[in-house]
């Protein structure tokens, strides 16, 4: 289905916002201003945006430790996100979450997660909640998306979640982002099904899709088909494997010695979802280069604003340690 100019502009802006958010964090982390562990989503933007552009606030997502892209794509506030990663009291989670645990329940974003594979069962719970709530006036169910990487596809929790979703016909979608590395180990070694994750999900008894995760339009089309299927009461879950790439290490500071010679440069050249998007829409004369350049400028400014706002945002005080507890001893 052809996307109109507004939809294309919005989708590209979301992808570019994530890209610049992550590129900027990559720089800022090296100055030591940001504390803790950070796992960047750079390179995988087409997946988060291609999935989330279809969703409403009734739909839920459960994210991973590489969650910034999912959060932004689901509508989390850019300044609130950046402030959270800066550890500010004004952050989305008041500085309690940091990079790995950002959540925004009102937006249907049920949390990034520091534990690989922990998200899938939570997504099934959210999907069961949607099933209880029943279809809307058009007869469609809200869905819950569980994002997982190729690392999480080896966790027992993910298997349990897939089986539970199938037997309860929960409107869940398991989105596997295969970026070819679980931490520092290659998918060809770590995933016994010869790098084929979708076939595992299929073996649990659900319909599966596969698509190029660096092609926004492939992701977006695939998700439309999946959502048309999963939103029908009684159909149950589905899964998809997106073949994608990450442009940074597992964590910031990862020396990436596991990469081949020139691999990253090649991926940035040939597998960059933003470059592919630009080539596609300008080639089809849907948007012009100057349209895209304007979005780039706008996204960069938004990130610059977020960083400046984070630098001057209120810091938590020692007494905030005891906020949001039911008892202290």
């Amino acid at each position, binding site marked *: 289905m052809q996307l109109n100019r507004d939809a294309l502009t919005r989708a590209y802006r979301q992808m570019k916002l994530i890209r610049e958010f992550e590129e900027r964090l990559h720089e800022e982390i090296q100055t030591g201003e940001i504390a803790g562990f950070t796992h960047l989503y750079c390179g995988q933007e087409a997946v988060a945006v291609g999935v989330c552009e279809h969703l409403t606030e009734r739909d839920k997502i459960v994210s991973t430790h590489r969650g910034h892209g999912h959060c932004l794509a689901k509508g989390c506030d850019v300044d609130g996100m950046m402030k959270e990663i800066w550890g500010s009291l004004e952050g989305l*989670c008041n500085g*309690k979450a940091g990079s790995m645990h950002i959540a925004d329940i*009102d937006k249907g974003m049920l949390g990034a997660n520091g534990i690989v594979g922990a998200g899938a069962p*939570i997504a099934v*719970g959210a999907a069961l909640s949607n099933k209880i709530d029943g279809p809307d006036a058009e007869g469609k169910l809200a869905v819950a998306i569980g994002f997982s990487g190729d690392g999480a596809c080896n966790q027992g*929790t993910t298997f349990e979640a897939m089986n539970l979703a199938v037997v309860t016909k929960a409107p869940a979608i398991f989105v596997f982002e295969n970026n070819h590395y679980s931490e520092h180990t290659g998918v060809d070694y770590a995933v016994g099904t010869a790098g084929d994750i979708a076939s595992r999900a299929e073996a649990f008894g659900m319909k599966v899709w596969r698509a190029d995760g660096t092609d926004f339009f492939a992701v977006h089309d695939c998700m439309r088909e999946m959502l048309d299927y999963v939103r029908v009461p009684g159909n149950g879950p589905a899964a998809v494997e997106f073949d994608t790439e990450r442009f940074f290490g597992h964590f910031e500071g990862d020396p990436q010695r596991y990469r081949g010679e020139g691999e990253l440069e090649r991926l940035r050249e040939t597998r960059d979802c933003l470059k592919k998007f630009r080539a596609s829409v300008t080639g089809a004369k849907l948007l012009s280069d100057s349209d895209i350049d304007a979005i780039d400028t706008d996204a960069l400014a938004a990130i610059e604003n977020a960083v400046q706002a984070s630098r001057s945002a209120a810091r938590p005080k020692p007494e905030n340690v005891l906020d949001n507890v039911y008892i202290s001893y």
Partner: protein
Amino acid sequence: MAKMMYRDAIRNTIFQEMQRDSRVVVLGEDVVGGMGTAGGPEAIGGIWSTSTGLYDAFGPDRVIDTPISESAIMGAAGGLALAGKRPVAEIMFADFIGVCMDQLWNQIAKFRYMFGGKSICPAVIRMPMGAGYNAAAQHSQVIHQFVTGMPGLKVLMPSNPADACGLLRQAIRDDDPVVFLEHKFLYAMSGEVPDDPDFVIPLGHARLARAGEDVTIVASGMMVGYAETAADDLAQDGIGCDVIDLRTASPLDEEAILDSVEVTGRLVVVDEAPPRCNLATDIAALVASKAFASLKAPIEMVTPPHTPVPFARELESAYLPSPAKVAAAVRKTLEYR
């Protein structure tokens, strides 16, 4: 008031809360019992009879019979709670907590705090626990000592049918995650339960099960009955004991314990958990640090030995605390000069 068994108090309370609030959802292994068999749904109705009839009344969307998948049950409870439901999940034996610890400890317990207070997590995790059935090392343990140490969880240990009702109802209505620890050996215990469908017991308030001025006995769960029996026996000899039923391991009613010890000056703590890092050591430390001047004798702790739960009848009996062991500890603390 109506006389009923502990297990029936639990089932009735869940039933009433499901009727009152459509957000209350039950899930767990065999909570329906018989799904996918010739016998059909409710052929079993839950192995503890704590969910019998719920499926017939509320249907498959709200009474979710799950595969044997503790991590998925626990995680789904977390997801349901984040999405606005009030799940009551059953982990068939508390011993299975090891299979799903991450979803309880790293997820459910932490959502509210980790998300900066932007979410609640009203999940109740029911875990039948404890020894007494010769069910051996992997089906007989208590687990309150682990979950009490986890910030974010409320931990309830009802010792009788009325408390099972009032505490469970409070747990279901509570906005925080609650680990509800039913003692398996108490399921057949009979007692009077209030009829009031809004009867709740606020969390963090201990119950004075016996009153006396010589020794304070602190207990929870099945240990309360042992302490009461010991106190009744000791009363024959003119020894008066306060028996404090904690009801909730967290929040802990520190005041009830400290107030009693200030009067008696002697403390016996009874705990079904092995001797290290359990409720007994926790309460001993509390009293040593906050009521040191009141103590007239060393604190006595009655616990099983530092072993797994053994199988044979003689061994399990030797393993568990008993009224006689509690009474002996009381006498020992009184003999100290």
